[in-house]
């Protein structure tokens, strides 16, 4: 489903940062991969390269067999198949919850309004905020906003979902409700790449855990392997700090 081969990414402004160094990664259909690592290790950059919000400098990234670094690829088509959930929700504040979930369906998928609304209501039901369909996002709690953001991404019927620290901006009591939605998704067989510091989530639903440091993948394995018998010193150090 996702095939990343020898990807490099260097930021030059404001100063030179090697954000990704020779990153290779494969994610199969239905797999849930959790990416962990210290701040600044390149987790977000990797995720953003996957839907071309950042452009990798070199290497290849195949999404469902399509080379997204090829100039001839219509990136908007690929992005429609890859949902993304951000740390800061990024809901559209001038639209109601319902409109947030229908907008891209209508504009990108060219669905009729009726079809889009039906789909949106079903998804809002699924994430448990059907009754808030007609309010604006600023009237929702952080947890509710993030669940709307997940519904918004799911409305496009994506093949892959990317989560960039979806619970980091939330009050502790709201983290559970968002993680529950993500767990349901994982159980339903969604292909997911999740950057998170929620080790409980990693342990429970991850098929594979990836540890990144300084732009490179340091260690990769099952949660079992990771939390019981980590190999690298840096992984051990990181886990000892976070657990």
């Amino acid at each position, binding site marked *: 489903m996702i095939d990343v081969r020898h990807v490099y990414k260097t930021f030059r402004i404001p100063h030179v940062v090697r954000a990704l160094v020779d990153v290779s990664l494969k994610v199969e259909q239905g797999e849930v991969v959790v990416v962990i690592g210290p701040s600044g290790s390149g987790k977000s950059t990797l995720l953003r390269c996957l839907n071309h919000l950042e452009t990798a400098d070199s290497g290849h990234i195949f999404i469902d067999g399509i080379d997204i670094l090829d100039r001839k690829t219509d990136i908007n088509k690929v*992005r429609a*198949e890859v949902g*993304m959930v951000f740390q800061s929700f*990024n809901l559209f504040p*001038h639209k109601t919850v319902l409109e947030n979930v229908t907008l891209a369906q209508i504009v990108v998928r060219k669905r009729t309004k009726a079809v889009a609304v039906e789909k949106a209501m079903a998804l809002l039901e699924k994430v448990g905020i059907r009754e808030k369909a007609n309010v604006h996002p600023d009237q929702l709690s952080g947890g509710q906003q993030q669940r709307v*953001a997940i519904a918004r991404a799911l409305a496009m019927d994506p093949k892959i979902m990317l989560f960039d620290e979806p619970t980091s901006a939330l009050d502790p009591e709201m983290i559970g409700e968002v993680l529950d939605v993500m767990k349901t998704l994982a159980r339903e067989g969604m292909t997911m790449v999740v950057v998170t510091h929620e080790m409980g989530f990693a342990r429970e639903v991850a098929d594979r855990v990836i540890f990144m440091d300084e732009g490179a993948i340091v260690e990769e394995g099952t949660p079992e392997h990771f939390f019981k018998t980590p190999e690298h010193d840096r992984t051990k150090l990181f886990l000892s700090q976070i657990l």
Partner: protein
Amino acid sequence: MGTPVSGKIPKRPAYYVWVGVFFLIVAGTATALYYATLKIDYVWRWYRIPQYFVFKEKVEVRAQIQGTVHRITTQNDQAVIEVKEGQASETYRVPKEALLVAEGDFIYPGDVLGSYARWRAGILMQGLWLTLKVSVIAIVFGVLIGLFGGLARISENPAFKWLAITYIELIRGSPLLVQIFIWYFVLGTLINTILAKQGIVQIPPLWFGVAALACFAGAYVAEIVRAGIQSIHRGQTEASRSLGMTYVQSMLHVILPQAVRRILPPLAGQFISLIKDSSLLGIIAIRELTKATREVVTTSLQPFELWFLCALLYLFLTFTLSMLLQYLERRHLVT
């Protein structure tokens, strides 16, 4: 301390004293001005002013040929007079009440068949109308130029970006008066001479004036648009693009609707400046409000009334516009 029951904080007596001071200063200034004009024997004649807005024009319909009034029929409110002499015949139309002849009357050329008065717009009214027209057209084009200029300014394409920067800096760095001269005396001469050589009709000065104003406003609007768009968090662009929207879709559905709220207030200021700046167009023979006032002053010799009036008329235009935009802003915030 007791909590106030109503939301209003009770005013202290000193407050009302200062309100009084305010009105005293305003009234004092007006009175002082009035007495100063009396000192130089200026005679205020406000009653002479309305005729420059609307006046009654006397219209006389005169016969062109000699003959008898053959027949008078009425169509709606009009009387149709048919004058016949042998084979030659002519028809004239006048309002029913204005008819001065009857069937069978003998008519000489130049005889008055009917006379009536009709209201005409005076020179000040025409000037006001022209100022409004020029401003509205310039605002519409200024907004269009500014929208695309602003988008080009934040584009990553160097051709668009540098063109936008060059345009904005050139316009903002030189006086509007000079720009109007360039549009009229340089570009206008060039364009009209070329058109004349091709045998095509000339472009009247009005359009060079409008172009100067629109381009001038466009540069400022571009900066307002740029600031408005950049004030929207980039997470909004990322969220919309990550859903598969194109640049244009993301702009239309997500970024611009949010940016408009921040753009409207400074835009209102820009529009008001534009209305006032249109007063410069008089120098290239466009008879807008200021030039019209100047012409009336030379014929009426009532400069004091007229210049105050001129200022009030601009105030009327700008005030109406800012009310309109405030209404738009409020409506936009609700939806």
